[in-house]
């Protein structure tokens, strides 16, 4: 079932959302949610994905948990989840 979720857009991508920091969409998996975001803001698709996969410096979290620890783009969304897109940052 498609859930309504908030997707947090990082500063670097807000030029493609007309400045919006959040986008409200619906979907039952992370992949569906991102597709809905791309339908609303077409410029985002190529910035975040390449050949249908996430680019290697793009991290996506569902309620704080990295989707690579779950089922990637197939990770299911529950009501009230928040999806966050962030650039990968090296640390130390």
């Amino acid at each position: 079932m498609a859930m309504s979720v908030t997707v947090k857009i990082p500063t670097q991508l807000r030029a493609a959302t007309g400045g919006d920091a959040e986008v409200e969409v619906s979907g039952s998996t992370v992949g569906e949610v991102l597709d809905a975001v791309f339908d609303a803001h077409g410029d985002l698709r190529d910035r975040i994905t390449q050949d249908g996969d996430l680019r290697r410096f793009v991290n996506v979290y569902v309620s704080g948990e990295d989707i690579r620890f779950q089922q990637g783009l197939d990770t299911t969304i529950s009501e009230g989840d928040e999806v966050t897109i962030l650039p990968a940052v090296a640390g130390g």
Partner: protein
Amino acid sequence: MSVESLKCKECGAGYELGAGFACENCFGPLEVAYDYSGLDAAEAKRRIQAGSQGIWRYADFLPFTGRPLDPLEPGLTPLVRADRLAERLGLEAEIWIKNDAANPTHSFKDRVVAVAVAKARELGFETVACASTGNLANAVAAHAAAAGLESYVLVPANLEEQKLLATGIYGTNLVGVRGNYDDVNRLCTQLAETRPWAFVNVNLRPYYAEGSKTLAYETAEQLGWELPDRVVCPIASGSLFTKVGRGFQEWLDLGLVEGGQPVFNGAQALGCSPVATAFAEGWDVCKPQKPETIAKSLAIGDPADGPYALEQARRTGGAIDSVGDEEIRAGIRLLAETTGIFTETAGGVTVGVLAKLAERGEIGAGERVVVYITGEGLKTLDAARDSFHMHEIDPDLASFESEFATQQEVVA
């Protein structure tokens, strides 16, 4: 010769020299680009040799127009020949230890923080911050105190007590986060969007990372303007590993040194080995892990520079290996016993991997190998616990003599 712009490492897009770290087109990491046209190698060497006794002697290769004010200048740490270590490992190679624990806050992080804090001041920030596995928090708190800036340092709450104590003392806002480093890093990336702060390893990361090049420059200068044949270097995020390579490459390109890149051997802890795993599996990217290791300063499960570290190890004919907790403890002890240098768990990882390479017969006779020791043993004392026996005696000669009766020759 000047610092020019920020440039995306993935797609090459250029950006102004401000506080930014990710490409708007592809999210690739930004890196500082320089214009070295007109640089004369002999003149550059003279300027270095006439420079300060620390990293600012390399100011021509750092993202500033002159030498910044820096009351806690790190660098020019000892590079010591370790013949007894080589002997214990059965090596006929020249082993050199670059002891970067000999910095103001006892780790290589002073290098990157000195550069980032100087840049933060230049850009007009009044508060500096970081996501850290401990050593970085230490360095940020100290350099902020020295520069008179406010600071916030965020670390996993379960860090070694020594690292927490040695950080809080500087009057920083020490924030222990109930989570691992990757949680802390995500939180800081989110905070960096709303707080007007210089997060040294987030929005100032392109400059911060440049500080690691000074380890390469020093190595070359201390070896008499020559490059080693091989380096063994720990990998957490992969930034140090790749920037040491970039430092060597710049000096090769500019003619300050001759020859080619050394073989790069990376060292990870088995309990947090996403880059070593990717190397072994032949992957181009790392699969993130949940860290479980005593080497907490290397406990980054999602290393952002992992892909570049993999490329560098493969390109130079090197490898990325991992060692378990017992090998880490043994590495700490071996280094201490053979060189008098007491390193933290990260150094135990590095020496452990050196031992592994020796065992595999990968280090040839006559090779010149530089081993990067990035932190101080006093910060991870638990790793030394129960690794030796203390003789406890009464304060009289008989007690001493009976304790050492079988070991000590008595001088008549």
